């Protein structure tokens, strides 16, 4: 093995090791309740920033809402109860994903209903177009006309003969 190859092997091995052993890394364990806090905070809308969750938002209100969630989770309150606490105070606006209850059902179902209606409209329109097209080839009057013409042609040919 040449010096060159040896050096290359050494370089590759040291590279691999330096990546796989992060020096000075300290293992930190997340509070077991933090996952629940995160789940709840991600599903709630930050009230002042319209389209960010409480977990992602940097606003003061969101931070304080997060601390309220944290306190409630630490006190052992159920996930549903905490979500409901905010729902009772801020209405269904607080849910980032709207619920399907009440009038919201109409919003969820509306597009599918419109799709169905459009599908029926398209189907009946296609059926109508096909019905209008089909008769052209087999139109009895056209057939008769062709037949009469051919008969006449035949007769005249016979006369010529």
């Amino acid at each position, binding site marked *: 093995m040449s010096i060159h190859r040896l050096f290359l092997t050494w370089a590759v091995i040291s590279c691999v090791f330096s990546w796989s052993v992060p020096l000075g890394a300290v293992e930190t364990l997340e509070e077991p309740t933090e996952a629940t806090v995160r789940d709840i905070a991600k599903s709630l809308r930050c*009230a002042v920033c319209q389209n960010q969750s409480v977990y992602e938002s940097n606003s003061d*209100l969101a931070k*304080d809402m997060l*601390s309220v969630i944290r306190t409630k989770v630490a006190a052992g309150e159920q996930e549903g109860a905490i979500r409901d606490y905010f729902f009772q*105070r801020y*209405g269904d606006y607080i849910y980032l994903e709207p619920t399907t209850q009440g009038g919201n059902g109409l919003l969820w179902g509306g597009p599918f209903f419109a799709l169905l209606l459009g599908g029926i409209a398209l189907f009946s329109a296609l059926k109508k177009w096909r019905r209008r097209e089909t008769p052209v080839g087999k139109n009895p009057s056209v057939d008769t006309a062709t037949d009469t013409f051919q008969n006449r042609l035949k007769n005249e040919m016979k006369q010529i003969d």
Partner: protein
Amino acid sequence: MKNLWKVILLVGVVTILALFALGLENDPRNIPSPLVGRPASPFSVSALDDGPPVTLESYRGRWLLVNFWGSWCISCRSEHRYLMKLARMTADRRDFAMIGVDFKDTREGGKEFLASLGDPGYRQAFDPDQKIAIDWGVYGAPETYLVDPAGIIRHKQVGPLYEGWFEKVALPIMEKKP
């Protein structure tokens, strides 16, 4: 059949346009509070002026105006003049009281605000980590709640109170349900 489809299409388009037109009129920040008609969350917190705690329960039996504000809020400055006037105007009423909740603020900030713009004279609760504000479903400042003598929230005003607000909004509610 052909006409039926035309009618359905027309109704659909008109409905969507009407909803769109209605939506344009709405203020996305003015979200109706689900708390109207429900009991107000009780609280007892330290006062801004270091006096005895401000307790919601102690106002039971009277109509109560709860004004959420902060020294950091610009609209609260413009509203303050009217609050001062309203406090003077209603000082003789035995059935009506007002309190303020200074939230997400520093004690110094709140005190300076009142020192420079004037103290309306009613009690101010201090809520630095906006626990009461969140409990009352507050989005921003100023927001004002009208609570009836039984402790039920009857109205929520988002944004500053304006000249004539009491006569136009509060009085009709108060006279309807004594």
